[in-house]
């Protein structure tokens, strides 16, 4: 049996048009009616979502030696300047924010000239190989032809200037992912006929806190060669080798499946999806990669390696589980898969997830969430602060997993918080990540402050 959450009369926290996006899980499973999701945000509801530009920037920004130019007024550049934890082993150009900083007069007379002059200056000074030009909200409206500028500059200076059409209003974050994937394809297509070699590309990992490095270490451990990475710790030279790979593995499916599909169709590289969150996912993913590469030796190594790692973690997990047994978690994250993965990780720690929400989950994600969630769990799509507040008060979680916007709300309600977003500075992927995640959850929940402030 499934009911909408607002059957109860209480303080107004849920808008009429939001009711279909909220579910209570009752015993006995699913009604099959599902949740309303994958739709536009409701105006005025204080969505936690970002915009098209944000999606594009998230995917492309980790490319370390590219010049990332934001064509538009300053805000978009300012709010995205070097705020994420993507690390580099080489260039650090990506940590700078370049912007045309459009002003009143540019809005009236157009910003094309300014963009062109800026690109020329960069070209003459640094002779770069790769530039991305992000067109934000008003660029199209004021009639700038960004494509034309990029084309002429590419030709004139023999470099790749790739336009990323990302006006904020033209869809949601997922549209931005797609725009970024198209930009990457534009970069790769000239090299699409490379001779294949025995190696893989890693897609959808952004090297937050060195997670790409952890995954690459695993590949080395099991003897699988990595050709190129998208886009964590990547560079122009590294990326254009990608068409030579035999297989793509896709870690953040939400952002990069579109790229994997295009590479499959246009470069004949099959892909598999993987996840490195939790012991189970990591182990299964490594075995699956070895299997997909038809590499017996790698399969054997992967098995040995994962068994060893899992054994090493046994004692640690036992110790920590004692304190976490029966604790309650709330999850509000970007995509459906991450939410599902977190519910499972909490389960493996003996915890119960009492509230689950995502910004951009798909109907089938919610179906799985419904299936694995325990009785009385609240499930929300594109929730706003008022709803999060209402249900956190009602469900009394011990910890909320989310992005930094949600942190102060959790704290105000006396709830611990775990940042599972892009600003963190410790890896949560792989076996190393299991340790960090477990510690963060445990240390957060069992921190002494709660004893004194929750009366």
């Amino acid at each position, binding site marked *: 049996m499934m009911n909408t959450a607002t059957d109860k009369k209480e303080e*107004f926290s849920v*808008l009429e048009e939001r009711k279909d996006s909220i579910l209570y899980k009752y015993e006995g499973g699913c009604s099959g009616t599902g949740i309303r999701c994958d739709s*536009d*945000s409701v*105006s005025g*509801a*204080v969505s936690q*979502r970002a*915009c098209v530009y*944000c999606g594009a920037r998230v995917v492309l920004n980790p490319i370390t030696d590219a010049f990332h*130019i934001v064509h*538009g*007024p*300053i*805000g978009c550049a300012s709010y995205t300047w070097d705020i994420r934890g993507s690390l580099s082993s*080489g*260039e*650090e*150009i990506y940590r*700078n924010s*370049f*912007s*045309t*900083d*459009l002003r*009143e007069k540019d*809005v009236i007379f157009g910003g094309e000239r300014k963009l062109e*002059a*800026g690109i020329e*200056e960069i070209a003459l*000074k*640094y002779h770069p190989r790769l530039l991305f030009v992000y067109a934000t*909200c*008003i660029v199209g*409206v004021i009639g700038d032809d960004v494509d034309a500028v990029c084309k002429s500059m590419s030709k004139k200076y023999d470099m790749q200037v790739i336009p990323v059409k990302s006006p*904020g209003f033209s*869809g*949601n974050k997922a549209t931005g992912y797609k725009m970024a994937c198209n930009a990457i394809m534009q970069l790769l297509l000239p090299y699409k006929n490379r001779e294949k070699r025995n190696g893989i590309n890693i897609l959808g990992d952004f090297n937050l806190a060195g997670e790409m490095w952890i995954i690459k270490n695993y590949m080395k451990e099991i003897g699988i060669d990595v050709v190129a990475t998208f886009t964590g710790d990547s560079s122009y030279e590294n990326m254009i080798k990608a068409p030579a790979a035999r297989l793509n593995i896709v870690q953040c499916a939400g952002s990069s499946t579109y790229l994997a599909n295009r590479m499959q169709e246009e470069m004949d590289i*099959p*892909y598999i999806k993987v*996840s490195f969150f939790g012991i*189970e996912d990591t182990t299964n*993913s490594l*075995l*699956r990669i070895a*299997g997909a590469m038809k590499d017996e*030796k790698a399969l*054997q*190594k992967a098995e040995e390696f994962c068994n060893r790692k899992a054994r090493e973690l046994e004692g640690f997990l036992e110790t920590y589980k004692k304190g976490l047994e029966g604790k309650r978690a709330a999850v509000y994250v970007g995509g459906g898969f991450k939410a599902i993965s977190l519910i*499972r990780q909490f389960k493996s720690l003996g915890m119960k997830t009492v509230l689950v929400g995502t910004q951009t989950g798909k109907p*089938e994600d919610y*179906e*799985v969430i419904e299936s*694995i969630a325990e009785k009385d769990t609240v499930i929300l799509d594109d929730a*706003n*602060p008022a709803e999060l507040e209402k249900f956190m008060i009602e469900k009394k979680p011990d910890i909320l997993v989310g992005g*930094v*916007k949600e*942190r102060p709300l959790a704290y*105000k309600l006396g709830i611990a918080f775990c940042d599972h977003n892009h600003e963190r500075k410790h890896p949560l992927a792989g076996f190393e990540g299991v340790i960090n995640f477990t510690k963060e959850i445990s240390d957060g929940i069992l921190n002494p402050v709660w004893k004194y402030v929750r009366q």
Partner: protein
Amino acid sequence: MKKTNIEPLVNMNVNPCKMCMPMGAVTAFYGIEKCISILHGSQGCSTYIRRHMATHYNEPVDIASSSLTEQGTVYGGERNLIKGLNNLIRLYHPEVVGVATTCLAETIGEDLPRMIHNFYEEYPEYKEIKIIPVNSPGYGGTQFEGYFRALHSILENVDLQTEKNEKINVILSPMSPKDVRFIRNSFRLFGLDAIIFPDLSDNLDGGFSDKYERLPQKGTSLKDISLMGGAKVTIEISNLNMADSPGRFLEKNYHVPYERINLPAGIRDIDRLYEVLSAISGRPVMESVKEERSRYMDAMVDAHKYNGEGRAVIFGEPDFILATVRLCAENGIFPVVCASGSVNGDLKDIVEKEIEEMAECYHIDRYEIMDDVDFKKIESLAKELKANILIGNSDGRRMEEELKIPLIRRGFPIHDRAGGQRLATLGYEGALQFLDEITNGILSKKETTFRTIIFKEYYKEKDCPEAKIMEYQDFAKAKREELERKTKNHPCFGDCGNGFARIHLPVAPKCNIQCNYCVRKFDCPNESRPGVTSTVLTPMEALEKYKAVKEKVPNLTVVGIAGPGDALANFEETKGTLELIREYDKEVTFCLSTNGLMLPNYANELCDLGVSHVTVTMNAADISIGAQIYKYANYNGMKLEGESAAAVLMANQLSGLRMLVARGIICKVNIVAIKGINDAHIPEIVKQVKDIGCFMTNIMPCIQVKGSAFENLPTICNKELNELRNKCSGTMKQMYHCRQCRADAIGTLDQDISIQFAGCNGIKGKDNKAEAFYRFAVASKSGIIIDQHFGHAKEFYIYEYRQKNVNFIEKRSIHKYCEGFEECGDQENKIQQIMKAIEDCDGVIALRTGEAPKKQMESKGIKVISTYDIIEEAIKKAAVAML
């Protein structure tokens, strides 16, 4: 790490030192009681601003968005905004709503007042709610201008009463909640009834309580704002806001006199604040304040010498820069760069007045004051003008990292440290905290760098000996670590059962001595002892064999040459083999075993070949005992017998070992314990080789081989052997896990797998007989868990279950099995395509499967399973169920 040094650009902003107008507008609205704001524009604007504010203030920040879409952009966003206002009001029940425009709304020409008018028409029940529009295009200025634009709009839109009252209007420049509280309390202290406008101190630095209020409850009330038109006087604590001065507005329209003062951080400006307070209230400055002032002055004197070395970069909003420059100027901290991201025509003139005089005292002729500037420019100037302290918001952290100069954090945003909302800058106490931090920053920079700077400048004794020593030490350390690692991963030299494997390549058939216990003519695969091999390989064959084995035995770490004769009696073969393998594999450890007769001749060459581990079998350190063990030795064309053979052998063993040890080779000495011959003498051998510097000894029992001279000697039993080893373990490390292996052994010590590799290349197929074997097709979107309906699947993951293992085989796209568009168009045929794609499977696992396809599949003997498990788990369960 190769890094491009990015310099400032003329035509582009590199690393913005500013944010946008809507940010400032929203901040101002946070100082109004029961007010919530909405941005008219794309969803991203409000999300980004919320993130920035939430991380600075550490408070929940709720800002709505009208979430303009493509359609709204083309046809106007009025519907979005009206709907957004309605939703927002229902959720938050505000008394005031701030509506701020964004770049997009302004560019498409949205008319806010008209839309608000229409909103009231449509929702007359909300007439009581004050909705205030602000034109704040992101390109129109920075957050500083947006903040004052919003204050101005509030005054324009609220009905101000003109009737005179006793209130004092206090207009605040953007400042931390802590500083707002200071100002508020100062007016109270003088008994003044001040309207703090805006007062964000509680809403953005709230307490922790049982009940959380999602609508900001504190701040300047609408009622107070309405009284501002009749106030006695306006004190505007801001001198550099240009276009939208609320004080000027109130004077012009309501004849409220106004005075502008600087942010009270420097002593002159704090004094001025108290003068004003005293003048308006008619009360003298309190003793407690005077005491604060006196402590402030005392601190100025105490720190002036440290501060005198300060070369500061000051950046941020114009009012903050002016106040900080004045504070620095009073304390002898010289501002070499003053920079604002805002466009501000007055900044340079006003600030320059402060710096000029100081520049003269310090004889400094270069400093920069700039507006409309980015961080790259500030960074390059800071470097050029040798700044040693940065003062401004957290966005200066890249400069701090790059230039290694301390950043004293003040202003907005502070998102990389805690407590940004509680940073104090104003009043004697607040400013003193600020000043102390600056002083300490200057001190810490000096304390942590002066030794190196002075050393580099004045120490000229040798040309950089430090670096050379370091370089050598690093190299030696790396070598040592490599050797340690190789030793650890060596099945014989490392710990027992470390799980690593070795291969012995039988390339050395000849021997140059005859031991009385040895016969080398045996080849029986089941016999295992030194000197035995099935075949002798050429160096090329040895390489091929190595490749074949390496392929199958991943934990192979060591290549050894152990006969069947003596490695050094066949030096050309040994050398050839090692060279070929080294070319193929740079990593593998080379190990060699010898009787040591030729060791002095080849010791250096072995090192050059990359041999890192050598075993010498040395059964005697006494000539007479040696003569009983060795029958003869062929040395340099001579056949030596008896004691002369033993003497030459012993001398060469010892000097060879010395040479190896000197070159850092790890040496093991094998001693064959022969009962009644050398068993009592063994501790003496151990002692001698220990003194040379060998790594370990391996005492092993003599194997009585039929046909050898010793075939009838009694065997040394295990107990005796271990007693012997234990006794010697006091002298040096003993090997306890020797398996006395063959000259063609492969594998770990406990598991010789050489038979598998007999015939050199390739491994014989494993036993493929499986207890259970099933193939499954899995419908999955994530590829990790079963999360797709059968009918929605465009592809299937194919897995095999074999001997309790689950192996991923491939992904099959059903598209490939489609025979033309028409056929694939309808649902019925789609199922046919799926069937074709998976007909070789024993089971199908999906989130859910319709009844029709389920029947079809079951009729073909394909089992259908519905679950939402992890793929691997689901398959295991399904296979068990099918068994």
